């Protein structure tokens, strides 16, 4: 099962990973990462809302490309990449990446790989509402370093 989607209103990670598990009976493991809207940032006011914008002609295409690259690179039986767009609130899932593989390290590494790419190289822009004001999120330097790990 290869399920790659942009979700404008809600993201149900359990049903996606249940389906992945059901459709990958020979997989020995399922690795999952769920990114959430944090209730607070250290030293900053609480997050009231988060808004994810994207660019339709590029964003889903880029996610599909990422899925193909991950399937080439790792021995996967299934891969799920779900990403929210629009307005989200603390606790809401933003992104869910799940991979099924015969042996566990392929699944874990594929999730790690996809998340690094989604963080630094996918067409999303994120802003947070804190103290009644919107703040655009800058890419973290760490995210670029994380991405660089995958380039031989």
């Amino acid at each position, binding site marked *: 099962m290869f399920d790659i989607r942009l979700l404008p209103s809600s993201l149900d990670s359990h049903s996606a990973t249940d389906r992945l598990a059901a459709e990958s009976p020979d997989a020995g493991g399922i690795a999952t990462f769920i*990114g959430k809207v944090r209730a607070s940032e250290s030293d900053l006011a609480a997050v009231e809302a988060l808004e*994810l*914008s994207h*660019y339709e*002609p*590029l964003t889903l295409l880029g996610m599909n490309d990422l899925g193909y690259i991950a399937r080439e690179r790792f021995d996967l039986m299934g891969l799920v990449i779900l*990403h929210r767009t629009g307005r989200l609130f603390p606790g809401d899932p*933003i*992104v869910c990446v799940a991979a099924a593989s015969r042996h566990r390290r392929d699944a874990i590494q594929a999730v790690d790989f996809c*998340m690094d790419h*989604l*963080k*630094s*190289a*996918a*067409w*999303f*822009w*994120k*802003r947070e509402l804190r103290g009644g004001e919107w703040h*655009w*999120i*800058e*890419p973290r330097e760490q*995210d670029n370093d994380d991405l660089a790990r995958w380039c031989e």
Partner: protein
Amino acid sequence: MAVTILFLGPMRDLAGMESCEVQAPLDWAGLLKAVNGEVAEQLLNRRVNVACGGEVLADKTSLNAGDGDEVALLPPVSGG
């Protein structure tokens, strides 16, 4: 018809609008002139990309948008 310039993410705030229409054809010099000073400055940053007709340009200075094309200004991403 014309060329639509689309301002994505934080670029929208700098531009003060989501999009605008300008006359075709539109090249790199024309784009820099069509947008305000802050956006033009951002466009010179190598981490800001430009897409035309749904394709990210490898060399944004080679922009050559015709009638009906959508030109998207893509600031650095912050996804996941």
